[in-house]
C-alpha cells in the first residue's frame, strides 16, 4: 500500500534528524519501546528532557558568571547534562557536552564559555526540529485514524 504524502513527509523529516547528525541510534531504540500502551513514549521522554535540562542550563549560566570559575561544579552539571542527552540520542548536544567537560578538565574558561554557547544553539535547534517532527507525526496519526484504509 502506498504511503500518503503526509506519512512520506513524516518519514523524510525523521530521516533528516539522523542525516544532519542531530540524533543517533539511541533514539531508534526508544522508538522501539513505543507501543499501543505507550504511543507517545518518545515525545514524553523528549518533553521530560527539555524540562529537566532547562534547570541545568540555568545553573551552568549562573556558574559561568562566577569568578573564579568552579570547574569541578561546572563539570558536575555537564556530567548530568551529558547523561540525559545520551539517554535519548541527542548526538550533537552530547558532543558539545563532552567538549565542555574537556575544557573543564583543562581549566579553560574561554573554551567552556564558547562551547556552552554552541551547546545552547544545538539544543535549541534540536528542540525546534523535534517539536515540528512530533507535530507532523501527530497530524499523520490523526489523518490515519480519520480515514482508515478501504
Amino acid at each position, binding site marked *: 500500500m502506498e504511503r500518503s504524502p503526509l506519512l512520506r513527509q513524516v518519514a523524510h523529516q525523521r530521516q533528516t534528524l539522523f542525516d544532519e547528525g542531530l540524533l543517533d541510534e539511541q533514539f531508534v531504540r*526508544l522508538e522501539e*519501546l513505543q507501543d499501543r500502551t*505507550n504511543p507517545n513514549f518518545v515525545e514524553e*521522554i523528549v518533553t521530560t528532557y527539555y524540562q529537566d535540562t532547562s534547570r541545568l542550563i540555568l545553573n551552568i549560566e549562573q556558574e559561568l558568571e562566577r569568578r573564579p570559575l568552579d570547574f569541578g561544579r561546572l563539570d558536575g552539571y555537564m556530567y548530568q547534562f551529558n*547523561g540525559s542527552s545520551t*539517554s535519548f540520542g541527542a548526538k550533537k548536544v552530547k558532543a558539545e557536552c563532552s567538549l565542555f567537560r574537556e575544557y573543564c578538565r583543562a581549566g579553560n574558561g574561554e573554551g567552556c564559555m564558547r562551547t556552552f554557547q554552541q551547546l545552547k544553539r544545538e539544543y535549541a535547534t534540536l528542540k525546534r526540529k523535534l517539536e515540528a517532527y512530533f507535530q507532523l507525526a501527530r497530524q499523520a496519526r490523526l489523518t490515519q485514524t480519520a480515514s482508515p484504509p478501504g
Partner: protein
Amino acid sequence: MFGKGASSSKSMEIIGYEKKFSVLIVDDDPIIRKIHSALLSKFTKEIQEVKNGKEAVDLYRSGASFDIIFIDKEMPIMNGLEATKELRAMGVNSTIVGVTSCDLSSERNDFIAAGQNQCYEKPLTIEKIKSLLSELNKNN
C-alpha cells in the same frame, strides 16, 4: 527464582522469560527512570522507581524487597556504591546491577567491591537486560 515456571503474561512469553520477577530502579535522572522502566516493562510488570540510594535503603528497611535492583552510581544524598554497601550490610541478597555514565572499565572493580553482581554502561538496552537475565537463569 529465574527457573522455568508457569507463563504469566504475553509480553514475557514473547521475550521468553516465564517467571515473574520484581525490579527496583534507582536513579536521580527522571529521563533514565522513564526509559529503564519502559525497557524493563517488556520483561516484568513489577517495577518500582526511586530517586536515590537512601530511598532504596529506606524501602528495604520498610520491608520491601525486589529480585533485581538497577542502581545508578552518581546520585545525590546517597550514591549507588554507598547504597549497595548499606543494603549488603543489612543482609539484602537481591541481585544488584550497577548502571553508570562513566567509563565502565575503570569502575567495575568499585562496583564489585561494593557488592554488586553486575554493572552496565547507561543506558540499558533490551540486549543488556536479556544477557543479564540469561546469566541469572544460568547461575540459579
